[in-house]
């Protein structure tokens, strides 16, 4: 879990790039989003809105590309391994994750001593990573539902009506941003809790033993 080596097969260059794009877009989206929510200094609204829209389109295209690429790119099947298989297989729950969900939870809340057997990603990790897909699309949906030019489209006005008006949709959009912020906090924490080797490989593509 911690002492293993980190090879480039774990994160091929294409996914290092998509991860960078995700990070940059997320920072831009959260910053401009906070500004649009409450402009804490002057003279930036037009830029903030432009930034918000561009980053949103980029992250949606990036996510869609990342999903499609998962069917074609091969990644490591295990931690510290050179052996590769199609990425989507390593992304979705596997045989090795079976029966391990509660054990993983127990490990993280200190109810068991030994770390659990997992594939490249543990069960909790896979649930979190897979959940970000619908969450990101839903985030874009709630954004379009409060965006002037599209909020009257049937697809979006139906959702606005369902949640009881545009103000409620705005609040949902705002809270969902916090879901992403908390996700990023936990993600960064768990990835680097043992050492910074995972960051070296995902950001700088540098292998470590």
């Amino acid at each position: 879990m911690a002492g293993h080596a980190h090879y480039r097969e774990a994160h091929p260059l294409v996914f290092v790039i998509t991860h960078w794009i995700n990070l940059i877009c997320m920072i831009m989206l959260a910053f401009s989003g906070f500004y649009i929510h409450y402009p804490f200094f002057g003279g930036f609204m037009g830029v903030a809105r432009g930034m918000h829209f561009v980053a949103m389109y980029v992250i949606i295209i990036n996510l869609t590309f990342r999903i499609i690429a998962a069917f074609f790119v091969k990644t490591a099947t295990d931690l510290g391994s050179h052996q590769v298989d199609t990425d989507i297989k390593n992304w979705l729950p596997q045989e090795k994750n079976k029966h391990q969900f509660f054990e993983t939870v127990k490990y993280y809340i200190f109810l068991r001593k030994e770390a659990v057997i997992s594939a490249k990603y543990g069960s909790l990790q896979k649930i979190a990573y897979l959940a970000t897909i619908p969450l990101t699309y839903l985030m874009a949906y709630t954004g379009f539902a409060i965006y002037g030019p599209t909020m009257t489209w049937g697809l979006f006005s139906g959702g606005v009506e369902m949640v009881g008006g545009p103000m409620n949709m705005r609040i949902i959009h705002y809270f969902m941003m916090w879901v992403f912020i908390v996700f990023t906090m936990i993600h960064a924490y768990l990835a680097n809790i043992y050492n910074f080797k995972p960051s070296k490989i995902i950001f700088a593509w540098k292998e470590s033993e």
Partner: protein
Amino acid sequence: MAQEAHGAIYDLLAVRGVSRRDFLKYCSYVAAMLGLSEAAAPAIAAAVEKGSKLKPALWLNGGSCTGCTESMAQVDSPDVATIVLELLSLNYFETVMAAAGEHAEKNIQDTIAAGGYLLIYEGSVMTGEDGNTLLVNGHKGTDILKEAAESADAIIAVGACAVDGGWVAAHPNPAGATGVQAFLDVEGVKTPVVNIPCCPMNPEWVVAMVVQWLLVAEDDPATFLAKTELLGKSYDDRLTGRNVTLLYPKYVVGSTIHDNCPRRGHFENGDFVTEFGSAEEAMGYCLYKVGCKGPQTFTQCPITRWNRSVSWCVQSGAPCIGCGAISWVDNNTPFFKRLSSMQMGDGLGYVQPGSVAAVVGGVAAAALVAHGLGMKAAGRIGPDGPPTETVKKHDRKRQAKGGDK
């Protein structure tokens, strides 16, 4: 000459101090509002001039503050709108009619018996205490509305209260207030209802509907529904528990206040008012930071404006409080905050989404720090990390039981 041929109406205008030019200008203004071309102005003038043929109408007040009546009668000198509205023979208009008592109430009954009238309903429908929260001359307001609605050609629900209960229906709604359409849905009355939003409603929007009725629809309910650009908006009525579809004139609710706002340029530039009474407010800066609900309120206020198009809320330096929205009080309070507050439960008070988010973020950060210290204390953080199991617990248990056969 045309002026002589249509003497009656121009005499009327002259008596009120309105020139023929003003009159035609007004007609083209109404045409623009209805989405017709300027060429329709003479036709509108003609429709108005048919003034001799009065359309009977009832103006009923439900649970209202009479603010919409005030809005209708706001002008200090008679203007064209007043004259157009005189096309309606308002047989009953509580606040301004001369008749009183039994005599006035008899007017309602006579009009209902004769049929073929427009019903203008102001205020909420108060259904609380089995309808006893609103009594007029010993009759329940709900009974009067139902009876008048059944025989009417069409109903114009004026003001936020008539639309969905307005502020009268705000939480906790002790009067059991709801809107006209929600009430009629429950009662099974099929008379078409056109909703004019806002608190109070804008008189020009009502005038446009009356002209639409008399000119385009030629006094026929089916033609009116077919030829008027209406926009249906559904909402879940909290009182009746039904999904109600409200019909609005499209020209009133087609775009947001934000999109047509004269302060919009300042919004894009990032010039904001942070304090009321400040220089920024006077300079026409954007009121977004002081709680303007313009971005999520769909009304025509910035274009029609108020008080004979003199000004309107945002122009005069007040943020939009979203009175044209559904459940507008519950959805938009506090008025001077960016987001509305969320109710935590009956009697537990309200909280701003930002406070909730800050607590969630703070707790998450603290939990992670605590967890990290725990990981360290448990000896999991080191060059080799924690020991990892060699067989899954599930498999160990199964093997202990004798494994697969």
